[in-house]
């Protein structure tokens, strides 16, 4: 089904509801816990699984082709900047743990506030350059590529 929610772990905080890109994690009004209201619109993207503070959400592969008895679990940690996976096969023969970085910097701190950057000059405005260009294109003194600089023209019709 894609995602489902364990009754005893969910406290109805709604983190999954806030993050789900498909708008399918909703709160059951009677039980006051989250559940997947539309499994056939679930991409198994794990956004809700990663967002759940209680690991209350899990995934059971799509019923039309995935047999029961497998597990792919995840813990994502923005503080540590890592994501940890555990994959267990149905037949128990494979049990893998995999770790990957999710960021190399403290979360969000190195993203510039463009409102604080100096106002671009008229020359810059009239050029075809974007913010941080030309420097960030090649990280040297080179400029922006143009048809002229690269010795090119456009011609109509076939190219061969």
């Amino acid at each position, binding site marked *: 089904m894609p995602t489902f929610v364990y009754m005893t772990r969910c406290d109805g905080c709604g983190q999954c509801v806030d993050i789900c890109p498909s*708008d399918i994690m909703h709160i059951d009004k009677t039980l006051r816990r989250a559940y997947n209201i539309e499994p*056939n619109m679930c991409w198994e993207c794990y*956004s809700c699984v990663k967002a759940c503070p209680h690991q209350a959400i899990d995934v059971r592969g799509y019923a039309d082709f995935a047999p029961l008895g497998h597990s792919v679990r995840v813990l994502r940690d923005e503080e540590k900047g890592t994501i940890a996976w555990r994959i267990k096969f149905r037949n128990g023969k494979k049990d893998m743990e995999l770790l990957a970085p999710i960021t190399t910097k403290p979360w969000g701190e190195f993203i510039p506030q463009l409102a604080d950057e100096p106002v671009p000059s008229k020359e810059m405005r009239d050029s075809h350059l974007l913010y941080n260009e030309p420097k960030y294109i090649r990280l040297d003194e080179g400029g922006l590529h143009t048809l002229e600089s690269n010795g090119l023209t456009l011609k109509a019709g076939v190219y061969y």
Partner: protein
Amino acid sequence: MGYKTIIEDDIDVLVVGAGLGGTGAAFEARYWGKDKKIVIAEKANIDRSGAVAQGLYAINCYMGTRWGENNPEDHVRYARMDLMGMVREDLAFDMARHVDSAVHQFEDWGLPLMKNPETGAYLREGRWQIMIHGESYKPIVAEAAKKSADKVFNRICVTHLLMDDAKENRVAGAVGFNVRTGNYHVFKSKTVICGAGGASNIFKPRSVGEGAGRVWYAPWSSGSAYGLMIDAGAKMTQMENRIVLARFKDGYGPVGAYFLHLKTYTQNCLGEEYESKWFPALTEMVGKEYLDTEGQHLSHKPIPTCLRNHAFISEVNAGRGPIHMVTMEAFQDPHLEEIGWHNFLGMTVGQAVLWAATDVDPKYENPELTTSEPYVMGSHATGCGAWCSGPEDVSPDEYFWGYNRMTSVEGLFGAGDAVGGTPHAFSSGSFTEGRLAAKAACQYIDDGKAKGIRVSEQQIENRKKEIYKPMETYTVGRNEIVGGSVNPNYINPRQGLDRLQKMMDEYCGGFGVNYMTNEKLLQIGLKKMKIFEEDLEKVAAEDIHELLRAWELKHRFRTSESVFQHTLFRKETRWPGYYYRGDAMKLDDENWHVLTVSHRDRKTGEYTMEKAPCYHLVGENEE
């Protein structure tokens, strides 16, 4: 109805849909518009929205000019070759000359890019692809967009663009509803940058029942970029150019890293290489300009994606399926095995779930591949989207009308899947297109082009009525029946989606008919679509969530209609392996070496089709 009307006025740049294109637009707009009001309206939550919500394990468009790897024109030639000549090369060149500056900034922001330990350059997966640990790609670029935007409205399903009542063919903002509160939102804006994404789920998917969500492109990619823009009267291009993907069976896990980095390869059920035997007949179909197997061998040019699909489909039809990916060699190396799994966890977790569920260990078993149902989008190996202006210093006259990435509607810009003729932009290229559109939108405003915009109360009221109509239809019709979902006076969004998918599959070249169509089939399909459009007036929504699905369906419908029209117009088989025109099975450069451009009249709904010249960068020989 008890829903409030919430008006956000005096917006300068409204970003509709903040995936990679929209986040790039919002981020960059602040630099060029220090005092401008920048607002994002997003259907989900921008931290996890769009096609990259799940993450990516590669950035598929990076030139590496800094490392002496490629120049922009090299990428243009590659995209042109892969798309059988049909590319807006001005837009492609423009994207390619800027894209590296986006990637270098991503690294600054904390996106983990893998490095080649020997050279210090980014680790290449292929000539254009670099490998990343991109689980948090989307949350990272979302931070950048949030820092630049004045306001971010999450959970707003934008249903329509607002049009200027003072001047014909000029955009004035957008309207939609909040999928949580149900409230009606009106965004009055001088410019709109549409980044509302491509379309999954318009052709019947191979998966059935619960698995219908396991589509290659995200199920929330509802073709809203096309639906919104076509309804606003924007011209579209190359909408016939849908894409079919050869992927791991059922899970649709990506194969790029497997082919390029892990050096896995495909074979038929007999363990044979099968592609090359289909090439002579294929060369007959497309001409040796597009598939010169001997020349290709010498020049090391890759075989176009669609032609590789064609060999795959033909081999399966010949009874020698399934096609397997040979992983058993590469996966003996524990390092490569780990990469193989990380690749899925970073971007298609469902494939890892499937292999765990079916005990497929690629170290000991070669997994099956399949060809997917078709998708309509504009940033992978396909270029559907709006007919947009290119940049002044590159574009020929036919491709230039004042502002980069502006559609044929004044003040309406595109980014990512929304822009037509720009395949192989992928995530980084889409972000770059958003940046280009943002700069142009700010220029448009500064040039005084957005003066005197007037939005009448009537337009706002009419749209409101239209938006909530499915809920009213439900309320009225529901009382006529005891219960259940069968009603003589309405259909629900899922029933409508099933019908749309069946029509697209059977009449427009879906997997169910081996991607085959012809003029007769397309005309029958269009007739059925017309009647379906009448029924869409009677789509019913039980609650706000279903209202979201109803509007997604309407956007998918409009996208599909355009695909039908374009497919009917182009009387040739330009991309065998994506789809076939059975009544014109050859590529026909004499008549069809052109881009197809459509315009839907806003008032009559009539389509006008035209051919636009295809311009190419000359200088075939790579340096």
